[in-house]
């Protein structure tokens, strides 16, 4: 096997067609979506709850291809975007301590807290290191035994097991100066919160492909059983997304509600039991705040007592005021699919990617960032 081949890449997950095949497949699927939508007649709203889906939908221009009565709305699918201000304030406060090194994925750096950001803290001299894997934290901790090395554990089910593995690896290696600051979250409780929110109307979900790699399909069954709403686990190519939309429309047309898997090349029905074992070994579920949505019961992950020695919030509690979001920012409503970014008074004016006010504009997977990047809100998509 060549080095290039050995270099496994996330995009290996998406089935690639030739351009001609892709165009023909997409055209046939759009025709089928139009046929089904015309048959159903009433306005339909399908929600994606994955930042990578959001970006793929915009990049491919899928919203513009859909018939008048089919809207795609974006849900709370970007972990950075749903992270509350006071988490960022805590991270910044830890970063400013002389005895701390903060390790984080790069996308957290520009996220605004209530006063500042990690990028500003770094400019002011805080020791903040960007890592590509939580395990990179181990080397930093080994080289800096006198420092507390805190990994910012932000993510959904896909990423949370990797931070849990960091804790287990640190314990195995006897590295006591490795800590997590956890704001990790679970997707199914958020779907339940959306489905019980009277302001939110959703006819079906494009379920997140890479979350499902870990969770499997069973955790989404309540969406169909309790709320009679269909869901399709979806891959990330435009054709995969269109194919999932067809499957959602087919269910809607028949008044059915099932959880289906359109990403079978990667997602197994049972998910990854090994990843879930790692999660269960390190974390327990707690009520957790989601930006713009509020506290969602049992939607957060905190470290179990057995691993408390690696929980920075237990070792060194950091009291920060509960953050106030920027008064004009409508990120919370955007994250629930209630308004589109264009309805926010800040969008494209005070709030642009180079000067983001809300987290939906900061993250490259944020809904506002996608709207801005792909057309700056000029197009009439997502009615």
């Amino acid at each position, binding site marked *: *096997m060549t080095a*290039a*081949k050995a270099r*496994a*890449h*996330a*995009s*290996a*997950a*998406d*089935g*690639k*067609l*030739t351009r001609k*095949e892709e165009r023909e497949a997409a055209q046939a699927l759009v025709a089928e979506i139009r046929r089904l939508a015309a048959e159903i007649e009433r306005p339909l709203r399908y929600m994606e709850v994955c930042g990578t889906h959001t970006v793929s939908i915009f990049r491919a221009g899928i919203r513009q291809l859909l018939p008048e009565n089919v809207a795609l709305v974006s849900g709370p699918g970007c972990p950075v975007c749903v992270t509350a201000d006071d988490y960022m304030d805590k991270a910044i406060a830890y970063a400013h301590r002389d005895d701390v090194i903060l390790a984080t*994925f790069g996308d957290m750096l520009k996220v605004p807290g209530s006063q500042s950001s990690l990028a500003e803290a770094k400019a002011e001299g805080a020791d903040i290191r960007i890592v*590509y*894997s*939580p*395990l*990179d934290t*181990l080397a930093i901790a080994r080289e800096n035994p006198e420092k507390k090395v805190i990994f910012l554990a932000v993510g959904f089910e*896909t*990423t949370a*097991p*990797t931070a849990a*593995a960091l804790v*287990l*690896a640190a314990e*195995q*290696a006897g590295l006591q100066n490795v800590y997590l600051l956890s704001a990790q979250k679970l997707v199914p409780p958020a779907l339940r919160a959306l489905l019980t929110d009277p302001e939110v109307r959703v006819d079906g979900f494009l379920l997140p492909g*890479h979350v499902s*790699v*870990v969770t499997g399909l069973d955790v989404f069954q309540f969406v169909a059983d309790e709320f009679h709403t269909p869901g399709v686990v979806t891959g990330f190519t435009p054709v995969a997304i269109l194919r999932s939309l067809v499957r959602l429309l087919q269910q809607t047309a028949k008044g059915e509600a099932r959880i289906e898997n359109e990403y079978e*090349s*990667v*997602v*197994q029905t049972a998910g*990854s*039991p*090994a*990843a879930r074992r*790692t999660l269960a070994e390190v974390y327990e579920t707690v009520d957790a705040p989601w930006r713009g949505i509020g506290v969602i019961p049992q939607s957060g992950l905190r470290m179990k007592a057995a691993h408390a020695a690696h929980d920075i919030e237990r070792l060194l509690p950091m009291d920060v005021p509960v953050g106030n979001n920027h008064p004009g920012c409508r990120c919370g409503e955007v994250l629930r699919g209630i308004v589109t970014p264009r309805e926010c008074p800040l969008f494209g004016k005070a709030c642009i990617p180079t000067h983001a006010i809300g987290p939906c504009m900061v993250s490259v997977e944020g809904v506002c960032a996608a709207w801005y990047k792909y057309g700056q809100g000029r197009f009439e998509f997502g009615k």
Partner: protein
Amino acid sequence: MLYYYHFLEVLPVGDYVLVHAGFAMQIVDEKEAEETYALLDEMNGAPRTVEALS
């Protein structure tokens, strides 16, 4: 420590895996992986070969 670099029940050498944040998350379909690499190679200047795979 290597144990923690993957979340697979077994680690069959030669298979393709989905990697996230440094961890092998799942074994993926070989045909899709081959096509992806053909496209990546093309992106890096190699002649187009992806049609030959399907």
